[in-house]
């Protein structure tokens, strides 16, 4: 035990490391395919995207060594400091940041740019873990709930101002963590219901939906509640209150949608819900990515053989739409393989997190799993046309040093915590 304690090499979960390198490797091949041109191929050419990404990947190794070098206690003790540092880096963007594509999300150092929001996720996860692992902390108290919300949504707030709404969405994933640690499920249920009502409002219009909801609720009341027995008690006030809340919500939804949303945001929803069709302008990306993926068939066209990939038909293919390369060149088998890899990774993280006797490690593990899960769901969902266009990267796959390093940081802090679980105390 003493020897192991001093040599974390034995505590590392090699399955996670293995999956990590598989994903990063597959990701780089996809970036290579999406950005290679026939002219002279040189892997370390910094003028090519695949060359740059290769450098980032290689630089991950010292990063990983540094992450593993720190004692796991370090992360718990300095979680708040790291969190504050990350908040400062986000705020600093408004002064020193560089505006790329309309969002002030980057620090630029020569030819290298860093996106602090990619790192903020890891530090927020640490801060949440630190907060929730306190022995005095009880999530049933509203005061504590609000504390947690502030820790989670403070960075989200700064990111929203950049504006980078896609990344903000990721912070909602912390509800899974809170729920695991005892927060009532009601928040998630109400959230999901709100999303469903929102989409239904867009589809059917507010007045029609209101009538529909009224009829459905009345039917439920009539069928189940009028007998005044069981768990639900018949209560006019509650029912009228419910009508009122839903009605207000529906009307405010349609107000926000029509008067607060930007047109391009509305378009994304409209296209997804089939309200309007457009394959040229706004729907172009999704249309092209669906076409490219469909054309892959069962086994794909083969590495470097995807004619849509090679023809650069899908915009942003090496970043947010990297999955189309997998779909087109590796087909159903390849893309299923990638999804299964991600699911395995998530299962393994949750499984390991549950084995932690230390609350901090478990909560951090949950944060990691939730963040990764949201990224995978939203990114692949967008690429295959079941989610609206929300620009967030696919972990370990998408081109970009900040995102790769951010996810590496997230994952390897957990691996470090996991390596020394059980004998650190």
């Amino acid at each position: 035990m003493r020897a192991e304690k001093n040599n974390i090499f034995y505590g590392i979960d090699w399955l996670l490391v293995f999956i990590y390198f598989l994903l990063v490797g597959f990701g780089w091949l996809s970036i290579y395919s999406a950005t290679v041109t026939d002219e002279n191929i040189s892997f370390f050419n910094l003028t090519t995207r695949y060359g740059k990404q290769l450098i980032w990947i290689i630089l991950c190794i010292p990063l990983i060594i540094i992450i593993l070098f720190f004692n796991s206690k370090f992360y718990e003790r300095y979680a708040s400091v790291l969190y504050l540092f990350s908040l400062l880096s986000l705020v600093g963007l408004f002064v020193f940041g560089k505006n790329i594509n309309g969002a002030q999300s980057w620090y630029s150092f020569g030819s290298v740019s860093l996106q602090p929001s990619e790192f903020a996720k890891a530090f927020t996860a640490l801060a949440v873990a630190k907060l929730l692992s306190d022995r005095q902390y009880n999530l049933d108290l509203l005061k504590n709930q609000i504390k947690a919300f502030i820790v989670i949504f403070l960075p989200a707030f700064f990111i929203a101002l950049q504006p980078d709404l896609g990344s903000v969405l990721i912070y909602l994933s912390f509800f899974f963590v809170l729920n695991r640690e005892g927060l009532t499920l009601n928040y998630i249920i109400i959230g999901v219901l709100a999303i469903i009502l929102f989409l239904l409002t867009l589809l059917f219009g507010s007045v029609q939906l209101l009538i529909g909801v009224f009829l459905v609720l009345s039917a439920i009341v009539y069928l189940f509640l009028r007998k005044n027995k069981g768990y639900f008690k018949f209560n006019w006030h509650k029912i009228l209150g419910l009508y009122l809340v839903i009605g207000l919500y529906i009307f405010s939804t349609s107000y926000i949608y029509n008067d607060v949303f930007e047109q391009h945001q509305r378009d994304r929803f409209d296209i997804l819900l089939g309200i309007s069709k457009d394959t040229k302008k706004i729907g172009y990306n999704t249309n092209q990515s669906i076409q490219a993926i469909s054309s892959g068939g069962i086994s794909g066209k083969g590495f470097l053989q995807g004619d849509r990939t090679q023809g650069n038909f899908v915009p942003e293919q090496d970043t947010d739409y990297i999955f189309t390369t997998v779909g087109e060149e590796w087909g159903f088998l390849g893309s299923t393989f990638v999804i299964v890899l991600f699911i395995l990774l998530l299962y393994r993280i949750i499984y390991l997190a549950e084995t932690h006797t230390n609350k901090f490690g478990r909560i951090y593990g949950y944060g990691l799993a939730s963040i990764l899960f949201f990224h995978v769901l939203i990114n692949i969902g967008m690429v295959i046309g079941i989610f609206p266009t929300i620009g967030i990267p696919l972990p370990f796959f998408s081109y970009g040093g900040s995102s790769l390093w951010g996810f590496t940081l997230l994952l390897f802090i957990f691996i470090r915590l996991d390596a020394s679980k059980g004998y650190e105390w």
Partner: protein
Amino acid sequence: MKRNVLLYAIISITGLVLIGRLFQLQIIRGADHNPSQNAAIKTVYDYPERGYIYDRNGTLLVANQLSYDVMIIPQEVKPLDTLEFCSLLKITKENFGKRFKKAENYARWLPSVFLKQLAKEDFAFLQEKLHKYKGFYIQKRNIREYPINSAANVLGYISEVNEWEAKNNPNFQQGELIGSKGVEKEYDSILRGIKGKKFLQRDRLNKIIGSYKNGIYDTLAVNGSDITLTIDSELQQYGELLMKGKRGGIVAIEPKTGEILALISSPSYNPNMMVGRQRAANSVVLMDPENLDKPMFDRGLQATYPPGSPFKIINALIGLQEGVINHNTHFYCYNGFQYGKRKSEFMGCHCEIYGKPIRLHTAISKSCNSYFSNTYIRIIDKYNNPSKGMDAWSKHVKSFGLGNYLGYDLPDGKKGLIPNGKYYDDRNKYAWGPTTNISNAIGQGEIDTSPIQLANVTAAIANKGYFYTPHILKKVGKNAINNPKFTKPKYTTIDAKHFPPIIDAMEEVFETGTAKWLKMEDIAIAGKTGTAENFVIVDGVKKQLDDHSILIAFAPKDNPKIAIAVFVENGGYGSTIAAPITSLLVEKYLKKEISSKRKWIEKRMIDLSLQDIYNQKIKKPKEEFKD
């Protein structure tokens, strides 16, 4: 519920949803993925040369010439020096804008024709500069060339595939040419060949980055096949010459095969008018509904006329077949035939044999109306009910190919009309009998036939009871056609034994009968002249116009090589115009030239113009047409 189950469950469900969607996209939808519909692949077409068309003697009728179209793909067009470009193309700036808009409206991502059929000099000049203008390219095409100004309506023309088809039929591109009339339309698939396809991989910016999959899907163009028509170009041209200044149709058929030797429609047009840059302007004139010449209207196929006296031969044959007359049966004629009690119920006759018995032979050669009226009444009255009688008669007539589409291999045609019992049952409130429609006896009344139908009847008579469906295609490449539709005889309902006496009588027409002045010493022609009344409604008043001049004939009588039907609109008696034209055509076909003794007839026919008569039909005062 354990708290960790929720995330496990949601992750699992999400995984299934994502994989399910991929299954839908890649396996269900992916199965019908087609490389030619792939936006990443540019298809380049190599247009084959369209087949040549020859006449039966190997004379070239239709050839090809090169033409260059300027094509445009609007979404690839980059800002350009419009002024210079317009001066290269010799168009105005407004015109440029209009053309560009039109192409854009058609489809931004599809090629469309920007400027048609560039002059050769312009092409050479433009070709060097075109690389500067992105989104424009030149498409080489073959367009038609007609060495002989003849047979325009038979040959037809090619035109651009229509927009709807170009957009919706993947086999066609805008600007592609397909046959749209005559032989060009009928045998388009043979003539067109198969275009070659080359698939090129391109990137999002439409830059070609190489051949798609090393060209494994590429195909080579297959040239169209040459075809040989049954037309005898010399006869055709000669017939067109004789029809100068006249309206009408002539159809000549080889009875032994059903091959159409000549299909003349007059007035016609120079087929070269439908080629090249003047085409649009020309076609407006040619297709103008106000143009009473109707040059695009094939009078050999599409015009229907009452057949007049030649139809008497069919009635005679039916009478013989039905046994209601024989060669000795005689009727009397008193300058006509009183078929009813009222004074108006009288049919006049020009046979000039008053009160003497007339037998079949004389009746045909002198074209006696009374004889055939009596015959017709006997045919109908043989059945105890006039409707049944009409049906029997109608069946015989239709067996000659009348009253319905003949089934020849040209896209235009008319059914004509041969009434049956039901036709009159529907139209007569009260009882009717053969005298109700007595005009049918002499080929007037309801009967309506086209020249080609009548030529076919003549061929059936020449063959003594059968015919081959007339056709225009003789060979594809070097192979003679073997379509049973055209190589198997069709039999009429008349027995062969009834024909010889009729044919003898038809010979008499050119010996001592209505056309005796055209008798030739060395060619025995059997024929029948006709004159069909026709009317036009002017200002609500039915007005009789000059009669149509009609003739059917075949020759030589004992070994028929040509059967012919001639209609000349408003030409008067059959013997005055149709008969000389027929005899000249027969002589031309059989002897290759007109004997010096008959040159005067030729000259007279060429010089004869009926234009003054046609002009009368235009009731509007002439002044209105001045400019």
